[in-house]
């Protein structure tokens, strides 16, 4: 047994406003049994004309599917599966689940981080998400599960407790199956936006938002 248990493996802190809309933890170590990735902070509103009060998501992709050039490998990422759920008190319980297909692909796991992201930026907004990546060395298909919170001082009714999961659909084909069973490689987290991305009007993380990767070690050999 290893005597060390929780280690800080990586950290990124957004250092300026209106600049950063995504961050990737790449080369996630495989010699930990559980990897936790925490994101906590604030964001700016979506000013695109198409943003009319919809839910703001953190769009997440795994296994380098966002960046095939890093490994030379291109997975069929249209076949992801995911679910999420939000709760406001005992009301407004809402959930959504989807398995992508060739005809109706999905490329990300979606994590709600604001419930009405066209409100004034003078309103205080916040979100936190804890992703858990289990068993990087297991031969089982990998899935991220997560929980979090989002809230906005624009209205108390915009507070939510959130939870969900996502992964690659290994029924897609052999390539996706191999990739889906592989060890955790990377996790990219980017704010979704309406219209064409524009640094001046699309949502961004506010300065001080923290991305952090923590490894929990069990046997020392990975799960």
């Amino acid at each position, binding site marked *: 047994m290893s005597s*060390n248990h*929780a*280690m*800080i*493996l990586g*950290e990124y802190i957004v250092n300026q406003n209106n600049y950063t809309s995504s961050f990737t933890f790449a*080369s*996630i*170590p*495989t*010699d*930990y049994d559980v990897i936790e990735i*925490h994101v*906590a*902070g*604030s964001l700016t509103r979506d000013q695109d004309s198409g943003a009319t009060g919809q839910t703001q998501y953190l769009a997440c992709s795994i296994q380098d599917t966002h960046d095939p050039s890093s*490994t030379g*490998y291109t997975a069929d990422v249209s076949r992801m599966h995911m679910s999420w759920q939000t*709760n*406001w*008190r*005992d009301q407004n319980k809402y959930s959504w689940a989807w398995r992508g297909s060739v005809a109706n692909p999905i490329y990300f796991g979606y994590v709600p981080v604001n419930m009405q992201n066209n409100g004034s930026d003078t309103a*205080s*907004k*916040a*979100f*936190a998400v804890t992703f858990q990546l289990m*068993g990087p*060395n*297991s*031969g089982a298909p990998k899935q991220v599960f997560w929980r*979090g*919170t*989002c*809230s*906005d*001082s*624009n*209205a*108390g*009714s*915009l*507070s*939510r*407790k959130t939870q969900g999961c996502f992964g690659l659909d290994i029924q897609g084909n052999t390539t996706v199956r*191999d990739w889906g*069973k*592989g*060890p955790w*490689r990377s996790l990219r987290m980017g704010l979704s936006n309406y219209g064409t991305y524009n640094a001046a009007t699309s949502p961004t993380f*506010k*300065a*001080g938002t*923290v991305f*952090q990767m*923590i*490894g929990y070690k069990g046997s020392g*050999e*990975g*799960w």
Partner: protein
Amino acid sequence: MAGTTTAARMAFGAVASSEDMNPEYDWEMFVVKEAGGYEHVQNIPQTHRNLRIYAHNSQQSNWYGWGYFNFNPGSGSGSTPSNTAGPGQYNAYGWSQGTSASYSNAMNPAVYDGCGYSNYGHIQVIDIFNYASTSIEKPWYSESQGGVGNATSYAIHSWASGHFLPGVAITNFNMYTNYGSGSTSYNRIMVYGWGGKL
């Protein structure tokens, strides 16, 4: 290494080891204490990224009641001040209680919880992210269970979420119930810093 996965893993290329990344140890114990009816925890070290609170918060007078955590109250019975209180919500569901216990407000004065009874079971876990920051919002969430007795059995599960405003770091908090009758014979508070040092 777990059986047949090595080849599959190497197919994706070598991954940097933890030694190469020179990671630091996480988690530090800040406070362990018995808690009375209006317990005030002060001088929280401003050293770590996030704050974790474990608590047993129970009362002597009633099976059901609200438990409260206020942040930066300045005293054992004070409320969360306006420079700290942000939006929040909570929900509790319990046997015989249903879901009637819920509340939401744009400027939430406290972290509410369905607290326990006497020395019967209750445990609450609260995470506050960026608690020592004076520049960014501090999202938090709480979950708990309580109220399972050995004579008359009630069970309740509660959760709450929201955030504290930027500008003021979290330096102190209090814990009490709406009856204010908690006892040091069973109530406890543990506080940890985690997420690495600042």
